[in-house]
């Protein structure tokens, strides 16, 4: 049985109260703020949950984020579906349960709340152990803005709770002093519970801050019913010091997953950092001096040592002597080889056997009764963040570990993360790196990287790594798997979370895999939420040994961001629901809402799609709206139309070069339809341009395309024709546009624009007038996107709603009908007017659309040269056509393919390609080749039937032909027609 140490003082100096928590329905006493795993060990809970695929009982294995075994579900709010017991901070009222296998997301729980924050600094230090604290201090003293981020609740790293001295001072005192000084610097920020999950280009980092429900002092950071649980930081820094420490690595042996088996350093940490005894009687087995020192720590905490084994022939003399003083002789060249369990699967005995350097058992084993088997195979520098730079780690035999390779200038890696095991050496290296980083950062002007530092990475030289034998130490040995001829590979676990065993690795290699990446994917080793922190290098070691390759040849699996799991709730932050994506609303939006409009998204815009009345569905509403526009009067909110003012002395010349048509000859006060092409001759955008003055035009663009067109205009003005005097003002949001449409539109305009001559003669088509509409200064355009008489009223967006309402009031006698985008599309398609993005997709020229009339023969323009390229000038290019389905009530599917073959007449593929088929039976029939596609399709009130537009190969010469429109499993016969269905003569535009 375990328990708490009565003689223990918290090294953080916090007198945390004892609180009540409930685990698996059982009430336990916890020390507030300690990890739940410590509370469980103190309460004697050995089995926390069961493993994901074998269902074996598992207990606490580590003391940190590397935990592969002890996963729990937190039920008290804010809950968590899956959490490492080592990282759940206890508070009064915490309720949790061990996970049996996989976690399940509850259906009913509200997602955790999260927010986002941005931070900038000169030096970001990741990890607040001795190296990180020293680096942050050194950088702060230089005067740099510093952020120090650490994933644990308290800074100090593994030093916190350590009995060793640093800089001649007890560890806890040194940490407290370092923190006090850091807090005295106004430009230093210390982020705890913050995991830097990604190290990206140009000093960008993503960090996940977890906010506790309550901390050790009972402080509640967020008392709202749904507190913010996560904060996602985006940190931009000039220099990064990675002081991420190292993780303890186990070695594998039969039954190494029993509750009671634990990493040696973690066991000592529970005893000294948290005052919790992870067992009463322990066997310790390792292959490096620190495992022996952990045995000393366990002994001094009051745990009986049943046996201590070291796989090396000659362990360090100092720890061996320290153990002998305590009456324990180290069994050299011995290691744990198997475990014995109680009926409920919990450790009862550990067997130690003589082993050779490959971990092969060389003689009979001896069993020792124990409730704790503390094992350690060495330490792996935490180099995941360093790997994000593209750095390839290299194996260092004296360290028996992968150390970081050369790093970019702006990334420093120090301390245990660089293989330095002694705290004093780590502190010294951290100090140097922090100082160098701060000096370099403050010298950088932010635009050009500082010159490459003369030395590559810091703190990696062997004379300071503390592994030498000067102080009675001996170098570590690499120990991977301890195997006897009779041991069961299927019970020898490599990845305790994924339940991957030696047998699984063997199967992968027997299947011919030699790459660590393939083996990882085949076995899933290292793919758990613990990110394989305890299994990654172990896997590489085992594979290298089996394949007789070097560690560098095998390498470690590539480590990519994020370093630790990031909840989707944290990634989303507040950007959910209405805040997911920016929404643009016109000044008339509230009116549309009040009048029952159904909206659709057009780019970022919310546009009314139709205005159903009573029980109307969309089809009925649109037929009614169309009828109003063709026979009476209707009104459209066209404010979303893109509007760009092009001005400057050379604006006419500029537009001549950009548009396919000529605009320098357009008279002031007149409008002209224009098409823009890319350099490749493909239609980019279209719209009406208005000449406001000699040197000023208003250019309209497709809704949602204004930003693209603006960028396009700027590109040509700045990059190609800097000699032209022309500039652009984006005016989309400045104007609200009310489009009054239909034969009765003139009556409505006459009522609200008394100063305006609305007659066809006094205000001809394709002109504009500046006047007063509904008492508001307005510009009215006589253009038409429907074929009907249209007055397009532009007013300052502030007056959009008022003018809209005035139009509605003036039109009441004529039953004026608001219409949405769906009706707009039907009306324009009846006229054969294209919409960029419907009839075009970046591969369609103006000629393909039958718009030769808009393309100047006399002048050059961007893309004109492309129109005579062999491919662009082909006769059988896809061209705009009209389509009439045989079934006059059927609306074609947009995107349906047009094929010549009738249903079932698909031709068979040639049979001579039998080699491509595994059997000599006939290959499946090849579908009839597509000849084009449906781009728009609607039901038309004016035509009394359905119709469509499409792009058809050589379509202009194929009017009258019958084809089939194929969509999914529906095949509809259609007749090809002219794309203009309504008012071919254009007689209706003047009313």
């Amino acid at each position, binding site marked *: 049985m375990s328990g708490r140490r009565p003689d223990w003082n918290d090294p953080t100096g916090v007198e945390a109260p004892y609180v009540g928590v409930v685990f698996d329905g059982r009430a336990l006493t916890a020390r507030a703020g300690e990890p739940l795993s410590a509370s469980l060990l103190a309460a004697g809970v050995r089995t926390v949950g069961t493993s994901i695929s074998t269902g074996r009982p598992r207990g606490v294995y580590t003391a940190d984020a590397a935990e592969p075994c002890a996963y729990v579900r937190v039920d008290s709010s804010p809950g968590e579906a899956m959490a490492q017991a080592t990282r759940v901070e206890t508070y009064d009222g915490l309720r949790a349960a061990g996970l049996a296998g996989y976690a399940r997301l509850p259906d009913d729980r509200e997602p955790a709340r999260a927010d986002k924050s941005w931070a900038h600094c000169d030096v970001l230090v990741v990890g607040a152990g001795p190296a990180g604290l020293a680096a942050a201090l050194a950088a702060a003293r230089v005067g740099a803005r510093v952020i120090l981020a650490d994933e644990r609740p308290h800074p100090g790293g593994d030093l916190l709770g350590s009995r060793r001295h640093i800089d001649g001072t007890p560890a806890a005192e040194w940490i407290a002093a370092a923190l006090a000084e850091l807090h005295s610097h106004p430009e230093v920020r210390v982020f705890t519970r913050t995991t830097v999950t990604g190290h*990206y*280009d*140009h*000093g*960008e980092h993503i960090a996940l801050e977890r906010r506790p429900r309550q901390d050790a002092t009972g402080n509640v950071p967020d008392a709202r019913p749904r507190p913010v649980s996560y904060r996602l930081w985006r940190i*931009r820094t000039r220099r990064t010091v990675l002081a991420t420490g190292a993780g303890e690595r186990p070695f594998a042996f039969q039954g190494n997953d029993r509750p009671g088996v634990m990493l040696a350093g973690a066991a000592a940490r529970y005893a000294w950092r948290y005052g919790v005894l992870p067992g009463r009687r322990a066997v310790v087995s390792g292959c490096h001096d620190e495992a022996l020192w952990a045995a000393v720590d366990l002994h001094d905490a009051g745990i009986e040592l049943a046996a201590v084994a070291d796989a090396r022939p000659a362990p360090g003399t100092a720890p061996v002597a320290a153990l002998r003083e305590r009456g324990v002789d180290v069994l050299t060249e011995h290691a744990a080889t198997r475990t014995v369990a109680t009926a409920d699967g919990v450790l009862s005995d550990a067997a130690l056997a003589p082993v050779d350097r490959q971990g092969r058992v060389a003689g009979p084993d001896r069993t020792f009764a124990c409730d704790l088997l503390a094992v350690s195979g060495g330490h792996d520098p935490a180099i995941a963040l360093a790997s994000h*730079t*593209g750095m390839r780690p290299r194996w260092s035999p004296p360290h028996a570990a992968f150390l970081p390779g050369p790093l*970019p200038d702006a990334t420093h890696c120090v301390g245990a993360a660089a293989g330095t095991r002694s705290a004093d050496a780590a502190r010294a290296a951290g100090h140097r790196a922090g100082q160098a980083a701060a000096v370099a950062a403050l010298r950088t002007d*932010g*635009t*050009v*990287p500082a*010159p*490459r530092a003369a030395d590559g990475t810091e703190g990696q030289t062997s004379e300071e790594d503390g592994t030498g034998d000067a102080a009675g130490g001996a170098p570590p040995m690499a120990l991977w798997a301890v195997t006897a001829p009779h041991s069961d590979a299927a019970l020898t676990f490599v990845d305790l979370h994924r339940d991957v065993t030696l047998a699984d690795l063997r199967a992968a290699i027997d299947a011919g895999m030699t790459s660590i990446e393939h083996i990882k994917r085949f076995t899933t080793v290292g793919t758990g939420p613990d990110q394989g922190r305890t299994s990654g290098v172990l896997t590489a070691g085992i594979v290298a040994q089996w394949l007789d390759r070097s560690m560098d040849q095998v390498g470690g699996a590539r480590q990519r961001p994020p370093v630790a799991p990031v909840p989707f709730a944290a990634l989303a932050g507040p950007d959910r629901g209405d805040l997911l994506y920016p929404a643009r609303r016109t000044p008339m939006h509230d009116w549309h809402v009040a009048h029952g409009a159904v909206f659709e998204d057009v780019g970022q815009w919310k546009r009314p799609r139709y205005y159903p009345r009573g029980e109307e569905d969309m089809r009925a509403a649109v037929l009614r709206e169309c009828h109003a526009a063709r026979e009476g009067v209707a009104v459209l909110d066209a404010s979303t139309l893109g509007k760009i003012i092009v001005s400057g002395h050379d604006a006419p010349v500029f537009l001549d070069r950009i548009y396919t048509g000529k605009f320098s000859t357009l008279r002031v006060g007149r409008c002209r339809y224009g098409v823009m092409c890319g*350099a*490749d001759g493909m239609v980019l955008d279209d719209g009406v341009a208005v000449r406001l003055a000699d040197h000023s035009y208003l250019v309209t663009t497709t809704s949602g395309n204004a*930003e693209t067109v*603006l*960028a396009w205009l*700027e*590109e*040509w003005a*700045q*990059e*190609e024709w*800097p000699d032209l005097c022309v500039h652009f003002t984006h005016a989309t949001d400045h104007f609200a546009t009310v489009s009054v449409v239909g034969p009765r539109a003139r009556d409505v305009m006459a009522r609200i624009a008394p100063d305006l001559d609305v007659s066809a003669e006094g205000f001809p088509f394709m002109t504009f007038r500046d006047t007063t509409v509904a008492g508001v200064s307005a510009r009215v355009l006589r253009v038409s996107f429907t074929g009907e008489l249209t007055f397009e009223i532009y007013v300052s967006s502030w007056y959009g709603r008022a003018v809209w309402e005035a139009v509605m009031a003036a039109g009441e006698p004529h039953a004026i009908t608001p219409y949405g985008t769906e009706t707009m599309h039907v009306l324009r398609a009846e006229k054969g007017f294209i919409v960029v993005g419907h009839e075009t997709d970046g591969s369609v020229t103006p000629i393909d659309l039958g718009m030769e009339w808009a393309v100047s023969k006399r002048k*050059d323009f*961007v893309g*004109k*040269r*492309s129109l005579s*390229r*062999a491919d662009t000038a082909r006769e059988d290019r896809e061209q705009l056509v009209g389509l009439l389905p045989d079934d006059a009530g059927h609306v074609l599917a947009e995107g349906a393919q047009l094929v010549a073959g009738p249903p079932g007449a698909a031709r068979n593929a040639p049979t001579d390609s039998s080699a491509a088929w595994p059997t000599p039976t006939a290959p499946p029939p090849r579908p009839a080749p597509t000849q084009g596609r449906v781009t728009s399709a609607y039901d038309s009130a004016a035509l009394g039937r359905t119709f469509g537009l499409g792009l058809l190969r050589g379509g202009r010469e194929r009017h009258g032909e019958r084809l089939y429109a194929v969509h999914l499993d529906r095949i509809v016969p259609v007749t090809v027609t002219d794309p203009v269905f309504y008012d071919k003569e254009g007689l209706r535009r003047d009313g």
Partner: protein
Amino acid sequence: MLLIPCPWCGPRDEAEFRYGGQAGVSYPRDPWALDDGAWAEFLFVRDNPKGWFAERWFHTAGCRRWCHVLRDTLDNRIAASGPAGTQLPAPDTGRTGERADAAASDPARSTRGSRA
């Protein structure tokens, strides 16, 4: 996310910019002097070096100016930037071996007329 040194606004997040591809590929003065092959080369063919690359960025969410940036496609280091139309010199890489060929090629080379 890259930190792009806008010559007008200073270093800004990549998210504020729109990418414009290779810099220094001018629209031919007289497109009609190019045969179809040379014209297609201008339209569709761009350099794709491993190493220094002069490219264009448009500061859409900032000053709305196009600028030229010299970026190392291997590690995203940015050596220089300037307003539209500037010729950015290929820097001395200070790096070994593999980079020599990429650095030697003129990053601002226009493909225009290479087959004409």
